[in-house]
Every structure is written in C-alpha cells, then in structure tokens.
C-alpha cells in the first residue's frame, strides 16, 4: 500500500446574494457621485454614515439624509504588518477609522500617501476616488492626508 493520505482539502463555501438594503444603497449610489451620504436621527441628531435606516440608540427610523465629509479625521488606526491570503496592499500599511466631517460614526478605510508609521489619531484626511464610478466602497481608492495639515 502506498503512503497514507495525511489530509484532504475540504472547503466550506457559501454563495450569498447580499442585499445592501435601501439606506446603504443610497450611500453606495452616492459614492458614484463622489458624495458620502449619511442619515440623521430625528431624535438624538446622531449622523450615521453609511445610513442604516434606523438609529441604534433611539430605535427609530432615520428619514433625513445628509451629506458628510468628504474630509475627515483619523480616530484610531492599525498598521498591518502581516501578509495574508487575498491581501491587496503590500504591508506595512495603515487602516484607520475615519470620522467624516459631520458624521458621528467612523468609516474604516486605507490611509495611503503617508508612511504607515506617520499615521496618527487626529490626522486630517481626504478621499482619493477611483476613476471608474461604481456603487461600491471600492470607489474610494484610499484616504490621504489633507495637504500640510497637522490637526
């Protein structure tokens, strides 16, 4: 008998059709126009971006639409040093929570055009858009420091 088999590749694969929902669809369509579309809660005045159709704190529908950004502030960040399968950017690179101006929740995105070790909380950033306009978060290539700013 030949050598025993040590392992088998046993993939777990789930194929979904993901629905963004109406509120997030408004946000994604806004990206095609290079706008960040959020929603404001009529009770607590909190601004969600992307809008989620309801306020997580007040538990009521959010029916007012507001544009936020496009500039924002890094509220926290991490530097990715570890390679992994499917990685699109060469490490080290920085991912950051970015509070767009006028929003009360942060977006998570890449921060580029700056050394990863120079990224800091409070850094002012602006989006760099892809040329192709699609209703996708990938329409924002990354965020970069606003020129000369050291907030």
């Amino acid at each position, binding site marked *: 008998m030949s050598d025993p088999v040590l392992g088998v590749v046993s*993939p777990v694969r789930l194929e979904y059709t993901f629905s963004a929902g109406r509120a997030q669809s408004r946000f994604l369509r806004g990206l095609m126009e290079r706008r960040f579309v959020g929603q404001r809660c009529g009770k607590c005045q909190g601004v969600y971006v992307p809008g989620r159709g309801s306020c997580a704190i007040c538990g009521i529908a959010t029916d007012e639409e507001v544009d936020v950004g496009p500039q924002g502030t890094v509220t926290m960040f991490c530097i990715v040093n570890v390679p992994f399968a499917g990685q699109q950017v060469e490490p080290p690179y920085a991912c950051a929570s970015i509070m767009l101006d006028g929003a009360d929740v942060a977006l998570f995105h890449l921060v580029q055009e700056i050394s990863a070790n120079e990224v800091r909380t409070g850094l002012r950033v602006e989006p760099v858009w892809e040329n192709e306009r699609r209703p996708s978060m990938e329409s924002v290539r990354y965020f970069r420091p606003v020129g000369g700013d050291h907030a």
Partner: protein
Amino acid sequence: MSETPVAAEAALTAPHVLEYAYTRSVGPVVGRFLAGLRAGKLLGIKTNAGRVIVPPLEYDPDTGDGLDELVEVGQSGVVTTWTWASEPRPHQPLDRPFAWALIKLDGADTAMLQAVDASDESRMATGMRVRARWRAERKGDLSDLECFEPEEES
C-alpha cells in the same frame, strides 16, 4: 451640506462568496483508507468482534478499543436504502439525477453512503446490486470513487 428626503429606491444587491479552504487532517486510519481509494481499493477495519466497518473507524464502536486491522472488501455490494436526487446541486457527485444510497459492500458489515448512477428512479430498488465506478485519475480523496452503478450494466 444638502438635505433631501430618503427616496424609496430599490436596494442594491451583489454576489458575496464566503469560503474557507480548510485542509483537514484525516488521521492514520482514514489516511490509509484514502490511500486505498487512490489505489482503486476499498478498505474496511475489523473490530474485536470480527465485524468489518466501511469506511473504517479509528475506534471499535462496541468496546472503544483502538483498531488497526484494515481489510479489503468487495467492489460491489447491496443497496440497503436509498433516495432519489432528482435535481442535483452544484458539487454533488453527478450532474444528472441520481440516487443517494447506503451500500453494504461484499465482506462489510456496515453500509456506506454513495451516489448511484441509475439514470432513472425506476431502476433503483432496495436489495439491488451495485458496483464501484472509479475515476481514471485519482488523488486520494472521496471523489476518487466517482459513484456506484447498477451491476446488471456490463
């Protein structure tokens, strides 16, 4: 900052695939069973009481003792129960309607689950004899045993 009422547009949808390509460690007994499949052989394991279990287990289900004696069983066997899969799903063994069957191979005391390529439900019956059909290129996993087919076919 512009403010407009939220319009009731259709929601966007997109395909989303979640996949984990695990490599599963199979252990010493199943490892030899799979090597058997690669060689075109079906192996079972003999329990302390002399029963032959296919596919083999590492432990005796009656006593819990470790088992090690692999024995080759027949390439043909008897359907003990079955169900008809009229609409095969992606990645199932066959891309046309087939039967899932429990098959007790000659020399085995337990039945194993496999597909039977029977063309039509009317050709399936409990007690019918079926024979293994192997893939020409085998790599040491369950798909090496492509399916079973009714034995009256030559």
